[in-house]
């Protein structure tokens, strides 16, 4: 147990937690996250005075936890479930300290409210960036502990004994002589008590839920078809819409001939929008058929002249611009002047679509007085704002009912499809469920940027780096998503992740970023975000230095990680489990990558076989993980397994290309994904750690591509620097019998 976790005596304590009674009876524990930038919630409490001074309802405070008079515990869930198991992990943090069973906790999706549900790492209300566990690790345990302390005190007062001799267990307080009071019976009295000055938290050896392999709360309805995703929602009088949006970004609708579409049985309405046409039907099939039958003329606009070649040339041209300086340590020019060995390399990563299996979908109803959305979104506040803008209603008149998400990978941090659903729904009086076809989803994504990275490094006589120069060129996601987060000269903190500050000991380090936005495509977040990009290029190039220095890639990395014990430990563990150094047949090879990603440390080793015809088979895939305290070891393992294969799928097969402004990929036949027959088993090894939990949802994704290309080099002597491998002629071989 780390010292600062044992007893929290921070003077801000009373500003961060507030307790009050509820109008209908019950106990409300409002926990406000430490104010990083958004201070409003905490400030509001401070300005209102100490707890109990003013009656506060859930609408006024960060009402994370409610305990009702029947003893039911409700956690207002600020994070959306999209398969990462986050809701179960957060519920476990609360249940651990509150001393209730996980099954006693009911989850309720948080409404949009930036002040209450802000993520302190991201600084807005969102699920993404592998921040959830890190952001809520402390506040939720403190909230649970506060509740427990108050309930125990209430019971002790009732019995006229000291709280020291009472114990909270399984949703009830137990006294020394066998007395027992359920939480529900105590909430009223507990709500009158002052917030405790000190909130001691359990040490890890006292945990009964955290760190144990718990079954997730959301999975049972997902194995019998009863779980409802946005696409599954059925509201009274609801009709279903699908759209054809201009295939060229920035283009507009010129005209539409809908005579044939209107003749299709079940088609109800055809609604022309600025850059799209929507068809509303009694069922999805009518809408899809109607959309296909439309004869649409578009004004494609300037982007119709653009193709991938021009976009890539623009990146190359931009590489010579100064851009923004991310890091400038030492004197790179002097360091590289007359050095023994100089190495240069250029890496490239393609545009990628998200291809979540549940296509973009949103149910919207626009009434005179309000707009209501039923949609799985990573960003409820942005959804609310987008709907307000389109409907003309004030944001507070937009109700957002967040839903289970059938895959997001960053795609549902965007609200374009939500705005479109509202744009359709404002034309009719009934609720409309917009579902994009797979083809619309693939061609109207916001894509992971195409990056071009140039390196130059020098090695001394011992093969160690004496200077490292790195230029990153690519579209800036942050500039579009959150321009206030940009640094000087457009420095995008996401684009330079890892690259600006690699964990290796690299003297004389210069890193530049040149923003160059593609005009024919919009760029956005994609699982692994900037760290995926940084890990790929840095881990690829460091491998090149090891080879140039004629040193073993694991040993070489260890030498440069002298002050990184956690990174060293995962690297050693992965190498050991992989049998690193053991001889392999000709055409086989092992490759490694290691880094700190999303607050966790990960090392990945790929062992593969190749054929001279470009066949490739991954025989083993080993990940060693130090994610700090593993909240739920099963979830950690499955996130690393799935995340690694998710990254592998893209590294093997995926790139989005543009011709005449049109995205050329459309469905899973030409934007193929890894299948079970292509997927090697992923071996995950966890390091037992008591450090603060790190993110795991994206860590595996970030490390697989460099390990893969490094293994390919070991097997073939060919260095692939541009992804995907299919572009270089590689294909996946069937599994060996």
């Amino acid at each position: 147990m780390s010292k600062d976790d044992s007893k929290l005596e921070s003077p801000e304590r009373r500003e961060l937690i507030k307790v009050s009674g509820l109008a209908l009876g019950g106990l409300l524990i409002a926990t406000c996250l430490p104010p990083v930038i958004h201070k409003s919630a905490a400030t509001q409490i401070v300005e209102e005075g100490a707890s109990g001074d003013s009656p506060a309802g859930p609408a006024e405070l960060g009402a994370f936890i409610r305990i009702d008079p029947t003893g039911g515990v409700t956690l207002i869930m600020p994070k959306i479930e999209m398969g990462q198991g986050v809701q179960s992990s957060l519920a476990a943090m609360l249940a651990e300290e509150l001393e209730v069973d996980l099954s006693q906790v009911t989850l309720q999706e948080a409404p949009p409210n930036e002040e209450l549900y802000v993520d302190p790492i991201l600084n807005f209300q969102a699920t993404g960036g592998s921040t959830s566990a890190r952001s809520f690790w402390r506040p939720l345990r403190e909230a649970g502990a506060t509740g427990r302390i108050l309930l125990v005190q209430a019971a002790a007062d009732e019995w006229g004994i000291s709280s020291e001799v009472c114990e909270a267990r399984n949703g009830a307080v137990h006294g020394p002589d066998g007395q027992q009071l359920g939480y529900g019976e105590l909430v009223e009295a507990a709500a009158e008590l002052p917030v405790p000055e000190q909130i001691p938290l359990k040490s890890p050896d006292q945990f009964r839920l955290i760190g144990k392999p718990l079954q997730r709360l959301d999975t049972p309805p997902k194995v019998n078809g009863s779980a409802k995703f946005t696409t599954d929602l059925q509201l009274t009088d609801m009709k279903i819409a699908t759209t054809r949006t201009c295939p060229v970004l920035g283009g507009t609708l010129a005209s539409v001939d809908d005579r044939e579409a209107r003749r299709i049985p079940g088609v109800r309405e055809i609604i022309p929008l600025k850059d799209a046409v929507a068809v509303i039907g009694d069922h999805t099939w009518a809408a899809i058929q109607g959309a296909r039958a439309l004869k649409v003329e578009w004004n494609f606009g300037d982007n119709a002249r653009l193709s991938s070649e021009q976009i890539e040339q623009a990146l190359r041209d931009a590489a010579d611009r100064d851009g923004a300086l991310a890091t400038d340590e030492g004197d790179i020019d002097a360091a590289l002047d007359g050095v023994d060995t100089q190495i240069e390399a250029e890496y490239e990563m393609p545009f990628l679509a998200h291809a979540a299996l549940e296509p973009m979908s949103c149910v919207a109803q626009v009434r005179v007085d309000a707009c209501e959305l039923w949609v799985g979104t990573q960003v409820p506040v942005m959804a609310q704002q987008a709907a307000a803008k389109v409907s003309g209603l004030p944001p507070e008149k937009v109700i957002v009912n967040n839903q289970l998400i059938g895959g997001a990978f960053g795609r549902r941090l965007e609200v374009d499809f939500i705005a479109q659903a509202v744009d359709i729904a404002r034309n009719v009086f009934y609720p409309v469920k917009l579902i994009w076809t797979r083809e619309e989803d693939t061609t109207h994504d916001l894509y992971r940027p195409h990056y071009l990275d140039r390196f130059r490094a020098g090695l001394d006589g011992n093969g160690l780096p004496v200077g490292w120069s790195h230029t990153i060129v690519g579209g800036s996601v942050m500039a579009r998503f959150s321009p206030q987060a940009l640094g000087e000269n457009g420095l995008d903190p996401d684009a330079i992740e890892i690259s600006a500050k690699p964990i290796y000991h690299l003297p004389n380090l210069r890193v530049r970023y040149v923003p160059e936005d593609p005009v024919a495509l919009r760029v956005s977040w994609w699982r692994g975000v900037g760290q995926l990009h940084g890990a790929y290029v840095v881990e690829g190039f460091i491998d090149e230095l090891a080879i140039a220095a004629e040193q073993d890639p694991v040993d070489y990395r260890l030498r440069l990680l002298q002050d990184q014990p956690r990174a060293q430990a995962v690297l050693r563990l992965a190498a050991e489990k992989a049998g690193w150094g053991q001889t392999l047949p000709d055409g086989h090879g092992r490759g490694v990558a290691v880094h700190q990603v999303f607050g966790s440390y990960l090392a990945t080793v790929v062992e593969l076989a190749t054929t001279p015809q470009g066949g490739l088979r991954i025989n083993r895939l080993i990940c060693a993980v130090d994610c700090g305290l593993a909240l739920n070891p099963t979830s950690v393992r499955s996130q690393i397994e799935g995340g690694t294969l998710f990254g592998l799928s893209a590294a093997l097969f995926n790139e989005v290309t543009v011709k005449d402004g049109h995205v050329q990929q459309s469905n899973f036949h030409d934007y193929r994904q890894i299948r079970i027959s292509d997927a090697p088993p992923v071996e995950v090894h966890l390091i037992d750690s008591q450090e603060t939990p790190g993110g795991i949802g994206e860590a595996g994704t970030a490390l697989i591509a460099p390990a893969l290309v490094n293994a390919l080099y070991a097997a073939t002597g060919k260095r692939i620097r541009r992804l995907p491998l299919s572009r270089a002629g590689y294909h996946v071989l069937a599994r060996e019998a």
Partner: protein
Amino acid sequence: MPTLTINGDTHQVDVPEDMPLLWVLRDVLGMTGTKYGCGIAQCGACTVHLDGNAVRSCVLPVGGVEGKRIETIEAMENSELGRSVQSAWLEHEVVQCGYCQSGQIMSAVALLSKTPQPDDKEIDLGMSGNLCRCCTYTRIRGAIKSVAKA
């Protein structure tokens, strides 16, 4: 007006004969466990059983399935094998987002009913029509093997 036998019940549905079974299930009969993912039989999210065989309902015109036995994810808990596969899925913590898992379970049940002890190659063959974008493949394989062993 096609007459369909779904999970043992008979349904008369007033829809065009060329309408894929997927949309009849989801939008007409309200059985939303069967999912849409691609519409071209590439992803397997829409997998149902037709006379015990795993098929892709997104490309199956409803006019062609009259008189055949249709089973969906909603009925899997009615058979012993279905229940075993569902509990294996939970025990192995297969599920992540869950959107593809109805289809995965339908394919797994069809595979295991014909090949009770599948080897890796047979699992590949029986399951490669089902994409999982969360890439839960390692656990799907483990869960199928555990049912086979039991």
